[in-house]
C-alpha cells in the first residue's frame, strides 16, 4: 500500500487516512491497532475492497485495486478475501453449512460440490456436528468458527478479521485466536486482524499501530 489517502466528503470534509504506507508479506499474521476514530476501520474497508480510496495505490497479490467496478470488486472480494466480523454476520435463516457454502454459490459452484467443500471446512474447524444448526442455535465461539470457515472456503489470499473476539468472552477469545494462529502457521494464510485489544495484538507476528490516519 503506497501513500493511500481517503477523505469522506461532507460539509466539513473528513480526511481519515493521511498517506498510509504499508506492506504485508504473504503468510504474515499481523494486527492493526488503534483507538476508535483512528481510521483503522476505513483502512480495513479499503483492504477488503468494500470501500474506495482517493489517491495512492493498493496492490493485492500484485493486482492493482483501484476504481474497480462493482462487479469486479465483488469478484475480487469473493476470490481473494475472506471476512470475519465482530458480530459474525451470518445469515440467520441459513444453517451453518449453507452459510459456509454461500461464497461458492456466487462463484457458480453446484450445490453438491458446495456442500461437500463446506462440510470439509467445518470438519477442519471441529464443527461437523453443528453443520445443520441455525446460527441462533450456536454459541458465540461456534458462530465465529462458522464465520471463519466461510472466510476460508474460497482459499482467499488474505483473511480480514474485524474485532473477531470483540463479542466473545476471554476463554472463547483465546480459542479463536489460537485458531487464527494455527491456520496461519499450518496453512500459511495471510491474516490481518483489526483490534483495540492489546492482548490480541500481542499474539500476532507484527503489530501495526494507527493513530489519527497515519501509521506510527
Amino acid at each position, binding site marked *: 500500500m503506497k501513500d493511500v489517502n481517503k477523505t469522506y466528503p461532507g460539509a466539513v470534509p473528513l480526511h481519515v487516512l493521511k498517506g498510509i504506507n504499508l506492506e504485508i508479506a504473504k503468510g504474515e499474521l499481523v494486527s492493526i491497532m488503534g483507538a476508535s476514530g483512528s481510521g483503522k476501520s476505513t483502512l480495513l474497508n479499503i483492504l477488503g475492497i468494500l470501500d474506495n480510496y482517493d489517491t495512492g495505490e493498493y496492490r493485492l497479490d500484485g493486482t492493482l485495486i483501484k476504481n474497480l467496478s462493482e462487479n469486479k470488486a*465483488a469478484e475480487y*472480494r*469473493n476470490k481473494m478475501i475472506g*471476512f470475519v466480523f465482530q458480530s459474525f454476520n451470518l*445469515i440467520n*435463516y441459513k444453517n451453518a453449512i449453507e452459510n459456509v457454502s*454461500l461464497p461458492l*454459490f*456466487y462463484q457458480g459452484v453446484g450445490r453438491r460440490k458446495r456442500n461437500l467443500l463446506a462440510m470439509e471446512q467445518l470438519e477442519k474447524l471441529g464443527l461437523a456436528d453443528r453443520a445443520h444448526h441455525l446460527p441462533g442455535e450456536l454459541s458465540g465461539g461456534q458462530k465465529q468458527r462458522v464465520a471463519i470457515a466461510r472466510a476460508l472456503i*474460497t482459499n482467499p489470499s488474505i483473511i480480514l478479521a474485524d474485532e473477531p473476539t470483540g463479542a466473545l468472552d476471554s476463554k472463547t477469545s483465546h480459542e479463536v485466536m489460537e485458531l487464527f494462529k494455527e491456520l496461519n502457521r499450518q496453512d500459511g494464510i495471510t491474516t490481518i486482524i483489526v483490534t483495540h485489544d492489546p492482548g490480541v495484538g500481542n499474539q500476532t507476528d507484527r503489530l501495526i499501530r494507527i493513530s489519527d490516519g497515519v501509521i506510527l
Partner: protein
Amino acid sequence: MKLTIFNIENWKEIGATLARNKTRTFLTGFGIFWGTAMLAILLGGARGAKDMLMRNFDGFATNSAIILTSPTSLPYKGHQKGRYWNLDVTDMERIRDAFPSLKTVTEQYTSSGVSFRNGKYSYSGDVNGASPEYCDVMAPTIYSGRFINQADVSLERKVAVVGQKIVNELYPGDPSPLGKDILVNGISYSIIGIAGQTNEISLGSRIDESIILPSSTYRRAFRRGNTVDIIMMVAKDGVKISDIEPQIKRLLFVRHSISPNDLSACDIFDVSEQFEMVDNLFLGVSLLAFFIGFSTLLAGIIGIGNIMWVIVKERTQEIGIRRAIGAKPSDIIVQILSEGIMLTAVAGIAGICFATAVLGIAQYLTTNEISTPRFQMHTGQALIIMVTFIILGTLAGLIPATKAMKIKPVEALNDK
C-alpha cells in the same frame, strides 16, 4: 456471462429463502392472491350477472315494437276527447304493406280470467290468440308438440298450445297430454303443444300460465270481429323502429280519425330501446367491475412494491453480507426480482384457482333448468390477468430491487 435466470442453483436458493421466511412470504403472497382473486371474481361476476339479466330477454326479438292503444286526449273531427278506439286487422295489413322494412307484423288477442277445465280439475288464466308469426317476436319454449301453424289459422282449427303450469295443474301425473282435450270457456280444444318461456318479458301473463289459440279460432270463440288487442312488429336487421314510428302513428290516426297532435292515443313500445338500455347499463356495470378490479390489482401491486421495499430494508444487513462475500449487484437484483416473480406466480395461480372455485359455486347456484349463466372466466382471460400481474409485479419489485442493488456493503454491514 452465465444466464442467472436459467440457473437451477438460483431457483433453489430462491426457494430456500422464501421457505425460510414463512410469515413474510405468506403476507406478500396473500396480497397478490387477493388482488388476483378479486379481479377475476369481479370480471366473472359482472359477466355472470349480465348473462343472468340477458336470460330475461331470451327468445324475445330485440328489434321489435308493440302498438298499444289508449283513449284519445284531443277532440277531432267531431269526436269527443276520451274516445276509446281499437286497432283492427286492416291496420295490421296496411302497416304490413306500407313498411317493407318490417320483417313481421302480427297481432295478439288476450282475454283474462278464462276458466280451463279437464274433468274435475280446473284453472283460471289468460287465453291469447296468435298467428305463427308470433314466434318471430317472442319464441316460446316448446316442451313438447308444436306451436300454431298457418293451417291452424286458415282452417280455424280448435287446437290449443297450453302453458306448462296449466298442464301440471290440469293433468297431474301426465307430463305430456298431447292430443287430449281441454275445455276453455266450455269449448273443447285439442292440445297440440306444451309451452313456456325463459325470458321475463310478457304481454299479459306468462306463456306458462296461459293458453294460446290460433288467431282465427280465438276471434270466433270470443266474438272479436275485426278488432285486435295489440300489433307486434319486428324490424329487419339494421332498421330502427323508432325511425318509422311517426309514420306508423300517422297511418293509424288518419284511419281512426284521431288528431295528429294527440300524444297519448297510441303508444309504440320499442323493445330495442329497452334492450339498449339494459345493454348500456351492463356496459356500465362491466366498466365499473373492471375499474374496481383493476384498482384492486393496482393496490395489490403497490402492496408488492411496498412489501418488497420493507423486505429490502429488513434485509439490508443480509444483502451487505452477501455483497461482502462476493455477490455482484446483478446477483442481488436477480435474487430480489426472482423472489417477487416466484411469489407472484404461485400466489397468482392460487388466486385464480380460488376465483374459479367461487365463480363455479356462483354458477352452480344460479343455474336453473333452462339456462346456465356463464360466470367462469375463459382460460385466456385468466392467463391475461396472470401475465399482467406478473409483469406489473416485476415492475413494482424493480424499484426496491434497484435500491437493494445500490446498497454499499460497508453501509449495510454497519446497519444494525
